[in-house]
C-alpha cells in the first residue's frame, strides 16, 4: 500500500495512503447502505467514489506496473493474489458505478440526463455490489497487518505519542509489497 506510485511531494507516502484509504473505506460503507443514507446521497457519493478510485490507482501505479510485468515470472504469491483481487475490484467497481448511473433516479436527471429504467442494469448493479462487499472484506483482511501498523503509527500518534513510538520501534513499516 505504500509504494511510491505517484509521489505527493513533501508528504510521507504511508500517511497519504492511510488517509486516502480510510476516506475511501468510509465513503464505501456509506454508499453501500442506501437505506441508511438515502438514495440521493447514495448516487452522488457513488459518482465521487469513482474519482477516489482513480486517486488510489495513481498512488499505486508503480506497484501495478511492476506486478503486471512480473506476474508470470518473478513475484510472490501474495502479490499475485493481491493483483487479481485488485483487478476484480476494479472491474466490479466500474460495473457498479456504470450500471448505477444507468439506473440513476436523482443525480443524472438533476444534470439533465435521463436514461430509461432497465431491470437488467438493476440486476447487474445489485449483483456486482454484493460481489464488491466480499472482495473489499478480503482486501482489508489481506492488508490488515498494514492497516493496524499504519493506524498505530500515524493515527494513534496524534493522541498517544508514546505508544506510537513503541510501535515504530517494534515493527518496521513494511507494506505487503515489501517496501519499507
Amino acid at each position, binding site marked *: 500500500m505504500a509504494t511510491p506510485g*505517484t509521489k505527493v511531494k513533501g508528504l510521507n507516502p504511508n500517511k497519504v495512503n492511510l488517509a486516502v484509504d480510510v476516506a475511501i473505506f468510509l465513503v464505501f*460503507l456509506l454508499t*453501500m*447502505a*442506501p*437505506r*441508511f*443514507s*438515502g*438514495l440521493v446521497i*447514495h448516487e452522488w457519493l457513488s459518482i465521487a467514489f*469513482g474519482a477516489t478510485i*482513480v486517486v488510489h*490507482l*495513481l498512488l499505486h*501505479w508503480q506497484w501495478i506496473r511492476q506486478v503486471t510485468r512480473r506476474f508470470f515470472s518473478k513475484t510472490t504469491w*501474495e502479490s499475485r493474489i493481491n493483483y487479481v483481487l485488485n483487478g476484480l475490484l*476494479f*472491474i466490479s467497481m*466500474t*460495473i457498479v458505478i*456504470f*450500471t448505477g448511473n444507468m*439506473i440513476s*433516479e436523482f443525480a443524472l436527471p438533476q444534470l439533465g440526463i435521463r436514461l*430509461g*429504467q*432497465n*431491470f*437488467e*442494469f*438493476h*440486476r*447487474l448493479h*445489485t449483483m456486482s455490489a454484493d460481489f464488491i*462487499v*466480499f472482495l*473489499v*472484506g*478480503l482486501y*482489508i*483482511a*489481506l492488508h*490488515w*497487518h498494514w492497516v493496524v501498523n499504519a493506524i498505530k503509527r500515524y493515527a494513534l500518534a496524534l493522541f498517544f505519542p508514546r505508544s506510537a513510538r513503541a510501535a515504530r520501534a517494534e515493527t518496521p513499516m513494511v507494506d505487503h509489497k515489501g517496501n519499507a
Partner: protein
Amino acid sequence: MKIVVRILVIALAAVLLSWLTTLYAQSSGVGNTNGGRPGFEARGNESSTERQFPTRSDAGRGRPGLYRAIEMFQPTLIITAIVVFVAPAAQFFRRRRKQRLSRMTSQSIPLTPMSHDTAP
C-alpha cells in the same frame, strides 16, 4: 504529463468495461421492464429504484429495530466477519512463509566453520 497518461489509461479501461457491460445487458434483454420476473412490471409513476431501494423512512418498516439495523448495515457486518476470519489466516501463512525462508537461509549459509570443513 505522466499523470494525464495514467488517468487516460484508467478511463479507457473503465470505458471498455462499461461498453462490455452494455453489450451484456443488451444481449440479456434491454427494454425489459420486468427483467423476466413476473409481477415486477413498472406501474404508473412508480420507478424500479423505488421498489428496489426503499427510502430511509421505508427501511424495514414494521420490523424489529435490531433487524432494521442489521439490514441497514449489512455490508459493514459482512466485511467485519470476513476480516475476523481471513486476517488471522493470512497472518498465519505469512508467518509460516517467513519461518520457512529464514530456515532455508540458515541451512544454506554455514555461519560457523564445521570441524570437517577445516583442513587438517
